[in-house]
């Protein structure tokens, strides 16, 4: 390999323009994108859906599909114009010189081939290895991504691995032929926060060891800043800002970058701040406004110079490039976020919902084994206090939500809604009042909204079902609801597929509100939404809750978000309650080691599906404070304070130790 200098970058993208053919028209999706990447350097591309970041990655690979076409500019890899390569030459590049880590590893692995077969074929195709050499190489790389029991994994099919393991396999697969560039497409999407943290650290180490350059794309600015040396922010097909990772977080130059940072909850426990949404939504490709594409959403917009014509990149005050004529002037003011008012005191808030030793078992696919989704879960939801149920995937949080809403029944325990047990009543067997009292908002609005009906018809139906059949005020209340969720009335005449993700979630919230619920259960209400839209929906839910005396129960894997909004936290792990209590207590003085790990988002090995103990504490194999008793008996549940419960064998004095540690962890005063 020839040494390269800064003047001779590994990857150079020069004024790239890409268009997609749609209904005979060419819709431009990338405008004049220029980027370069030196040997061993890591560049992160951040953008929301429709920003063109995935198109950029696929254009680099010259894999745009039948509809996509490079309409201008050039891409050089290692000094060679990619456009000049034949299909055969491209194949020699793919997998060998450029490795790719795909998003949603579970889908990027062939379900009918063993992991071993999918790894060895890379070595055999590119390195000319024999079967035995390829197998050795595959094992070496599986070990290098810290996968345990490599022999088993080589013979396993993808579905037999956990999500974290699949992601590691995909990384190992990209590394087999020792590429000089690694392309990462949302490398941690679909992974739990703790698993994602481990993956990011792993990728950084591997890249550093091999002197490998990385081009990563993600919607997550903080993730890219952790993974990469430099970050480029894309909006509506253009790079709007590019800078060193630390500089872009500390001094964002473009209003959009700043918006992205302000609408996210703070990463450490800096108090419960109100999120500042970026108003509006990103233009769809082909609908870009003239001048600055971010103009319609920007607080600094003025017709001149922002709307006058194309804006060019220029040097920003913090040493990067920025595409904003206002950057550097008044734009550098730091954000002012208000503090969120806390919910009512525990003593002053009556219990609305009490969950007592709730459990759910169901038969697995073969019908022979019973699977425990929930076991012995107890906590209380108090009126006006927002309760967040947090846990990784597989923690049973969605099952719990479905039982509360009557979509499933519990197999043991009680669920008291204002003192009445509804644990074994499906929604249709509950009274109208009970049914109306608990409503649900789902994660995926594409599935939960009827695609054939207009939004208006769905909301009106719920209004009629929950109210009096001959309600003359239904029309009026419909208009009020649409107003409450900030949707224009004309959006109600459309079908779900014609609305944007954020609008669809607002419509789903309006439909749930139509029953005037006292408890609104929201299952991952914003995780399918673009970052800049998330904050608006979160703040909408919070204000609706206050205005309508409606208690929120939010299910989420997103602890940073939950800690900025929740009054009470319920932490689940593999279907069991780990710890429940007031958010302030849990965040500043977590008692259970799992809660501590979650709060610190410490790097720890992926908790694989294969290592679930059949007795004792389920977290024991991963617990730093494991004792002998932990693998023998299930931990008892203890009440430490009002509404504060923990299921752990550790004695209370350890909890006091954890208190100090917790404070040190995220620097509370």
């Amino acid at each position, binding site marked *: 390999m020839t040494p390269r200098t800064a003047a001779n970058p590994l990857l150079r993208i020069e004024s790239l323009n890409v268009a997609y053919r749609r209904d005979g028209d060419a819709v431009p999706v990338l405008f004049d994108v220029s980027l370069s990447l030196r040997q061993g350097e890591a560049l992160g591309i951040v953008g929301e859906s429709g920003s063109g970041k995935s198109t950029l990655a696929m254009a680099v*690979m010259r*894999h745009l599909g*039948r509809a996509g076409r490079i309409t201008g500019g050039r891409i050089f890899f290692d000094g060679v114009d990619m456009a000049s390569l034949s299909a055969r030459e*491209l*194949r*020699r*590049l*793919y*997998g*060998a010189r450029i490795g*790719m880590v*795909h998003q*949603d590893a579970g*889908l*990027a*692995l*062939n*379900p*009918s*081939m063993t992991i071993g077969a999918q790894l060895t*074929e*890379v070595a055999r*195709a*590119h390195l000319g290895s024999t079967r035995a050499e390829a197998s050795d190489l595959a094992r070496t790389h599986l070990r290098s991504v810290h996968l345990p029991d490599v022999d088993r994994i080589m013979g396993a*099919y993808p*579905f*037999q691995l956990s999500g974290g393991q699949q992601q590691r396999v*995909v990384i190992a*697969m990209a590394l087999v032929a020792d590429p000089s560039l690694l392309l990462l497409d949302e490398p941690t999407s679909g992974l739990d926060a703790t698993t994602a943290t481990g993956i990011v650290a792993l990728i950084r180490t591997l890249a550093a060891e091999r002197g490998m350059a990385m081009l990563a794309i993600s919607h997550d600015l903080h993730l890219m800043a952790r993974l990469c040396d430099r970050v480029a922010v894309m909006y509506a097909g253009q790079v709007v800002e590019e800078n060193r990772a630390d500089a872009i977080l500390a001094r964002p130059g473009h209003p959009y970058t700043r918006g992205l940072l302000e609408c996210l909850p703070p990463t450490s426990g800096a108090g419960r701040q109100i999120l500042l949404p970026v108003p509006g939504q990103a233009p769809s490709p082909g609908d870009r406004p003239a001048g600055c594409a971010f103009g319609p959403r920007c607080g600094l917009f003025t017709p001149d110079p922002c709307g006058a014509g194309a804006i060019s990149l220029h040097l920003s005050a913090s040493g990067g490039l920025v595409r904003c004529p206002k950057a550097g002037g008044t734009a550098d003011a730091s954000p002012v976020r208000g503090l969120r008012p806390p919910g009512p005191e525990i003593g002053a808030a009556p219990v609305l919902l009490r969950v007592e030793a709730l459990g759910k078992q169901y038969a697995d*696919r*073969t019908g022979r084994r019973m699977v425990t989704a929930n076991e012995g879960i107890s906590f209380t939801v108090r009126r006006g206090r927002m309760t967040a149920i947090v846990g990784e995937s597989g923690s049973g949080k969605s099952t719990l939500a479905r039982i509360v809403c009557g979509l499933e029944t519990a197999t043991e325990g009680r669920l008291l809604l204002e003192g009445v047990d509804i644990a074994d009543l499906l929604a249709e067997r509950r009274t109208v009042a009970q049914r109306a009292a608990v409503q649900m908002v789902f994660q995926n609005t594409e599935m939960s909204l009827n695609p054939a009906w207009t939004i208006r018809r769905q909301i009106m139906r719920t209004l009629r079902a929950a109210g009096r059949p001959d309600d003359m005020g239904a029309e009026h209340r419909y208009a009020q609801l649409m107003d409450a969720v900030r949707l224009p009335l004309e959006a109600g005449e459309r079908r779900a597929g014609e609305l944007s993700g954020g609008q669809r979630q607002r419509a789903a919230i309006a439909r749930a509100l139509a029953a005037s619920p006292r408890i609104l259960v929201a299952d991952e209400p914003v995780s399918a939404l673009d970052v800049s839209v998330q904050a608006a929906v979160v703040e909408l839910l919070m204000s609706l809750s206050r205005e309508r005396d409606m208690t929120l129960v939010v299910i989420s894997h997103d602890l940073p978000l939950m800690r900025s909004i929740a009054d009470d936290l319920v932490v689940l792990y593999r279907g069991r309650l780990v710890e429940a209590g007031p958010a302030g207590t849990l965040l500043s003085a977590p008692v259970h080691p799992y809660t501590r790990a979650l709060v610190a988002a410490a790097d720890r090995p992926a908790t694989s599906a294969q290592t679930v103990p059949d007795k004792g504490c389920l977290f024991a194999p991963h617990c730093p404070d494991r004792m002998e008793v932990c693998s023998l008996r299930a931990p008892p549940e203890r009440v430490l304070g009002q509404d504060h419960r923990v299921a752990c064998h550790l004695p209370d004095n350890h909890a006091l130790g954890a208190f100090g540690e917790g404070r040190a962890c995220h620097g509370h005063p």
Partner: protein
Amino acid sequence: MKRIAATLLTAVAASILLFLLFELSPRSVAIATLGPFATPEQQTLWLQAHGYMQPPQVRYCRWLGHFLIGDFGQSRAFAAPVSSVLWPRLGHSLILVACFFAITLPVALPLGIAAGLREGSAVDRIVSAIAVATSALPPFASAVLLSALLVTRLHLVPGTSIMTEGWDWRQVVLPVLVLVLSDVGYLARITRTSMAEIMATPYIRAAILKGMSPARILFRHALRNAMITPFTIIMLQVNWAIGGVVVVEAFYSFHGIGTLLLQAALRKDLPLLEAATFVLVMIAGITQMLADIGYAFLNPRIRLS
């Protein structure tokens, strides 16, 4: 092992159902056999003589016992043992089905794969157009058209498949062609859709971006996953082609099991009807078993969990 047991269980259940269906009211059997003008006394005598007065479970066991050793009783319509009528007819049908698949699969699968491999390409559009046109044509219409062309015009093959002089391959051509014509487009379309779906999956993209050759992507990565749906359809069609193509058999007077079933039903020939139905149920059970085994081979998730 479990699948074989399940198949056997299906067979037993089917035999009980058949028995109940046909023989639970013995008097109607007597009427069917002796004709509508027999007196009640004559019917009773006949029933006693044929053991119908015994309890149903005893009769079922004896009936099943005879079935298992291949003794299906006497066919009234053919005035011969059922087995001497049934087995040759089944043989004819199996040959028909074998020829049908021997032509359909090598045509439909590659066409479907080629079309699905490049969705929207010229190949895809041509295959889809032909597929729609052929599967829109009902078998009786294509039978008429083919006969007009190959028999009346070109005098290439005989117009009937009655085979009075013994087995004649030339007489199989037309029924097979009609079946092929009615099915090849349908199967090609199923294969195309399945293939196109697989080619759009992230793991195929991953294989392409790993630098795998087009041949390896097709044969190693795509084909096995893409064959799951067509395989299911093909196994279902085995049954349809053996017993369910009465129209084609009748049009060419082909002596298959489909027309046999029809004749037996029209003439109320209960022993023959029972035997033919039972054989078809068994064939359905066996193909289902083979389908399950093949499905487990194609899909490791089924095999291993």
